[in-house]
Structure formats: C-alpha cells, structure tokens
C-alpha cells in the first residue's frame, strides 16, 4: 500500500521529555556507557554544563515524527542529523522538553524527503536533520 506526500505538508508535531531516567534506559539498551551521559564530573571535564542526552537518543526519538506519520518504519531508507547543541538533562523529575516539527521538502521517484526540526528552548539541537521515506 502506498502513502501520499505533498511538498510543504507539515507532519503532526511531537514534544519529547528527557529525564535522567531516559538516559539510563538508553545507555542500557544501546550499550553506550559514555560517562558524559551519566556523570556530571565527566561532562564538566569536556566543558559541558551537566550530563547531556545521548545524541543518538535525541536522533532516535525525533525520528518518531516520521514513523508515526508513515506508519511502517521500514519505509525509512535514509536519515541523517548533525548534533548542533547538546541537550543538558537536569537531575530532577521534570527533565527538559524538546519540540519536534517536520515538513515534506521534496517528493521524487517515490521517495519523500522530510526535514525535521528539534528545538530546546527555541534553539535547534539537531541540524540538517532529514529523512527519506519510500512512498510506494
């Protein structure tokens, strides 16, 4: 079954909350135990304000805007991002919120290109974030 996409179409937005618990879960599930994601001391050594989210966690969670829209994740044939700003995650219950929006920027040869924007406090945390989705 094919899906349709029009250039300029906006995908339903997402709001993602990041707490320290999310980072611990992702560390365990992914095997990425870089201490900058769980030790404030290690983060400070690299000049970071506090523990930061795994870039891969932000990348993974932001892609849900695309897979929720297209339904079948196997339609995603390419996805790339730059990690432009870290996502510092405080040691509290509220965490931080990342807002994700996306729109279709190109449709050609049965493939839609979706540009994704992820912001924290109005500042982009992902740059050049694009996914390619098979429509057929």
């Amino acid at each position, binding site marked *: 079954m094919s899906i349709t996409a029009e250039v300029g179409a906006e995908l339903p937005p997402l709001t*993602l909350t990041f707490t320290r618990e*999310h980072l611990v*879960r*992702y560390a*365990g*599930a*992914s*095997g*990425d*135990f*870089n*201490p*900058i994601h769980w030790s404030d001391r*290690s983060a400070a*050594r*690299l000049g970071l304000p506090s523990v930061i989210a*795994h*870039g*891969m*966690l932000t*990348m*993974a*969670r932001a*892609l*849900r805007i695309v*897979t*929720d829209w297209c339904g*079948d*994740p*196997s339609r*995603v*044939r*390419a*996805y*790339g*991002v*730059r*990690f432009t700003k*870290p996502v510092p995650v405080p040691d509290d219950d509220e965490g931080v919120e990342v807002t994700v929006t996306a729109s279709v920027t190109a449709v050609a040869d049965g493939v839609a290109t979706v540009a994704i924007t992820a912001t924290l406090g109005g500042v982009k945390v992902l740059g*050049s974030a694009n996914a390619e989705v098979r429509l057929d």
Partner: protein
Amino acid sequence: MPISDAQVGRAYPATAPYLVSREKIAEFADAVGDANPAYRGSAPIAPPTFAAVLAARAWDGLFADPELDMKLAQTIHADQSFRWTRPLRAGDEVTATLRIDKLRARGASAFVTVAVTLATTDSEAICEAVSTLLHTWPKEDA
C-alpha cells in the same frame, strides 16, 4: 595529537556477529519511547537507529587502536547518518566493518569521520552508518 592523514582509509576487521533478538528490539524500542507495532510481536523489525548499536560495536576497534589513543569519554558525537538497504530484523546475524573516512584536526581535537558497513553473515547489505566523532586528546598529548 597522535592522529594524522596517514590513518585515513584505515579499515578494521569486521566485528564478531551480533544476533538481533526480539527482546533487544523491544528493550531498545522502550528506551526510545516508541510503541510502534512493527517493533513487537513474533517477527519484529528493529527501530531504524538500532543500527547505531551495531555500528558502535565497530567503534570499539577504533578506541582499541593504540596508535590513535582515542577514548570514548573524550568523544562527542558530532553527526550521524544512515542509509538502509532494508531494516534489521529479529534473527539477523550482523557484522560491522569500520573504516576511517576523513580527519580534520582542530588544536588538540579532531573530527574523525568513520563509515561502518552493516551486513548479515550471509553477506546481505543492511546499512551504511557514517559518524563524525569530535575527539579531544588530553593536553599533555597535544
């Protein structure tokens, strides 16, 4: 800084095969907060970025290379891209092969771009994962 253009193009042996399991797919989908039914049931596919878990196993070769003297704790992920031939599925046995694609030095740091090819043990191509890692060597090594 021990890294130089001489290391561009260096390739590392493929990782030992990794068997993708239903349980690991479900654990990863839970960790990224995704309830998509494609990741559940008896024959799930993995979330697309699960490919990073396998690619990172190939990074271990990089961090174990004594000539580079790179450490995970001194590394920040600068960019990441994936191109999939097909999704990873439960039951796939996958190896990851890494090569150093590009180096760009900046003082005591360097942007190291690595390309990891994921393929099944039957040589079916699955994914090309390209990462840029910003590594900082301690000052005494600079």
